[in-house]
């Protein structure tokens, strides 16, 4: 059978948002992008874990916002959302805390009524906070018995330093000392007009916009958070022994820079070529050629004032050193020879395809918008990003790789037997 012709994709169209600025300065971005009868609103606060001074206070704040408000108990909130089939999601990373509500359009009013209470009037009841801390402590202990979780923690500590805001982890016992006052203080300091923006998308109406603005306009003013993240203090190699583990979790990488840095996109292309898709170099080498692993990946991660490059694979214990050798070999190859045209075009297609897939369905566009606003830009960035991916040359990529990925600059962490 003849292969069908390849239709080269037109550049994906990046939907632009409409900005509404509230009286107190809070920004609401809207996207009317669905006829499917669904709406989604996200409230984004500059309140990630790197802002906390008391261990676990940042995650406890976003996770207990719904545990009781001035008008509704925890159970009433859950009941009301479940009754209309809406759901909410609380998400936190090192820099940001994001609260998202999804609802059928016909039940948006009921859902926004809950969102308003949760965002503006949480009471952090003593009892609920206690239950939360006890539960999370147990869950964390469970997590820390898993090699892959330990591997993530060890890698963060090893590239940034054990006390660095982007590397620190706390003992599970710190949950015993966390109080509702710690949480209430974190909330009042960080959940303010200056620290917030919102994104509303889907099958939205003027009423939905007005309701969201009404919530945002009630956010109190606070101080504008400023900080300087200290320089990372990396260790070249770290190992953690887990008895009886049949696999080793390997991570290799180093701290670099945020997305605003001119070399971020080239590093992202390099990461994709190394381990961002099934045909990537690490997958071909470790999985397809050697059968060391079920999966290997590489990524460039963006943080507010930093970023890092990471390669990762869970390999059979007996192949630990061999797999590290192959991973380093793939990096070296990148530094010493330019990518072929076919591979580079392939990697561009992968990145274009990923962006187009995110734009399929109404909610993905909102996620892209959130990330762009977090990086102090807007959706025109995504167009420039795609342009840069399309024009970056193999020589430029090799230079960037040689600049940042020399072997002695990389940290290697191993968790396993």
């Amino acid at each position, binding site marked *: 059978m003849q292969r069908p012709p390849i239709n080269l*994709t037109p550049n994906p169209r990046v939907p632009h948002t409409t900005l509404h600025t509230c009286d107190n300065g809070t920004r609401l971005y809207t996207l009317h992008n669905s006829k499917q009868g669904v709406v989604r609103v996200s409230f984004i606060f500059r309140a990630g874990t790197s802002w906390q001074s008391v261990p676990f206070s940042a995650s406890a704040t976003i996770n207990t916002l719904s545990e009781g408000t001035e008008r509704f108990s925890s159970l009433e909130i859950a009941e009301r959302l479940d009754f209309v089939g809406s759901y909410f999601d609380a998400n936190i990373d090192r820099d940001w805390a994001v609260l998202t509500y999804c609802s059928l359009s016909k039940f948006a009013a009921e859902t926004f009524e809950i969102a308003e209470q949760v965002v503006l009037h949480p009471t952090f009841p003593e009892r609920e906070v206690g239950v939360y801390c006890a539960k999370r402590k*147990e*869950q964390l202990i469970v997590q820390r018995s898993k*090699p892959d979780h330990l591997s993530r923690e060890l890698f963060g500590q090893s590239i940034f330093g054990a006390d660095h805001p982007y590397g620190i982890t706390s003992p599970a016992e710190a949950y015993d000392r966390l109080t509702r006052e710690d949480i209430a203080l974190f909330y009042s300091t960080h959940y303010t007009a200056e620290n917030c923006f919102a994104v509303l998308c889907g099958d939205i109406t003027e009423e939905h916009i007005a309701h969201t603005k009404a919530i945002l306009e009630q956010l109190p003013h606070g101080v504008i958070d400023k900080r300087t993240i200290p320089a990372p203090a990396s260790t070249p190699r770290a190992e953690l022994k887990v008895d009886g583990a049949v696999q080793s979790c390997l991570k290799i990488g180093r701290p670099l820079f945020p997305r605003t840095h001119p070399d971020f996109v080239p590093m992202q292309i390099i990461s994709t070529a190394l381990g961002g898709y099934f045909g990537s170099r690490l997958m071909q080498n470790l999985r397809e050629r050697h059968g060391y692993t*079920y999966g290997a990946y590489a990524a460039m991660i963006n943080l507010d004032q930093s970023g890092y490059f990471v390669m990762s694979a869970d390999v059979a214990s007996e192949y630990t050193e061999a797999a590290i050798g192959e991973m380093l070999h793939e990096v070296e190859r990148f530094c010493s020879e330019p990518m072929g045209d076919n591979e580079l075009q392939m990697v561009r297609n992968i990145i274009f395809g990923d962006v187009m897939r995110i734009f399929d369905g109404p909610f993905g566009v909102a996620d892209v918008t959130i990330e762009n606003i977090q990086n102090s830009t807007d959706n025109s960035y995504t167009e420039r990003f795609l342009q840069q991916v399309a024009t970056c040359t193999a020589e430029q990529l090799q230079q960037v790789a040689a600049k940042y990925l020399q072997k002695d600059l990389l940290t290697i962490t191993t968790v396993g037997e």
Partner: protein
Amino acid sequence: MIDFKQHTLANGLRVLANRDECSGMAAVNILYAVGSADESAERTGFAHLFEHLMFRGTPAVPSYDTPVQEVCGENNAFTSADYTDFYVTMPKENFETGLWLEADRMRGLNIDAETLEVEKSVVIEEFRQRYLNRPYGEQWHTLRSMVYTTSPYRWPVIGLTPDHIREASVEEVRAFYDRFYIPSGAILSVSADIEPERVFEAAERYFGHLPTLPAPVRGDLHQEPLAGPVRKVIEAPVPADQITIAFLMDRRSERGYYICDLLTDLLAGGESARIFQHLVKQKQIFSAANAYITGEVGEGLLILTGQLCSGVTIEQAEEALYEELRLLSEEPIGEYELQKVKNKFEANITFGELNVMNKAMNLGYYAMLGDMALLNGEIDIYRSITAEEIATYVRTRLVPQRSATLIYRKTK
């Protein structure tokens, strides 16, 4: 609500098409009516191993992934007890590339000793990563073998042991391919901004020449319920004690399936559900708990499970789970609560149909079940279920006499 048209080629390939005018992407899904339930008890894990081999290339297309990536596409696959599903999404202008690739590997796969060896070691690593290298990893192997005595559901999709995968021969792999990977055993579904007629015409062009072979016939899935309770305790270095109770439930096509789906939602569908509110939040018996159904075509499992808070005994935890069942069967379930779980189904169905991939996958799944009316009609079945039906089901079916209980005790 998913609109669709369907058409069957002369060689038996069923084709379904949904037109989505909002999306720039196309999803091409191909479902083969073969899963771990079609394996012999001596070669478990075979269907899943074969899913991996489908990516190993053909004479015409040495690497499946390359042409996909050249058209900005992405693909993946999964295997269940009942079927194996392959999907690819790409900009809609290139949807024929998806059809071309699937037609090519439906009958042209390279199967040789060398590719088989590499893929075996990948699957054995997957076995280790998911089932051996983590706490509670072997729980499904144990639990399934406790409930199922004759049904092929007694082994998990990954297989009983890595040895079965290690021993698979090239001849066995070829025979499996010829028996199941044929037009009459497959369902092709497409969701994109493309006229259904154009999809059918393209399907004819790419798949029409493939041979007409008898459709694979499925063996007996039936499993008799347990005659008395079974119980197993595993002492292991797990982070917390855990209890899991399994009951054999009705087949996918029976009303009891929907009753079980609703009643597990009453117990654990959302923050306000009973198990979460009563046992996690109020009584603090479990740090995490859940109730769900496994959803096979034949008799599947209804599962109640929880990880115990420290200081709670297994006896207390077990009693608490049965107390929730007693409440369901003895105290009338209010109209409000029933309405809540039914609304949730409606919302989840809408949220589950927002992109082309999910729509193409749903089309294939319901065609595999053999009743396309269910695709948009299941919500009416859920809406028709009464509180009395649920109570009766719990009282007669979810009883200790019919239970399998697996307990993990943390070693000191």
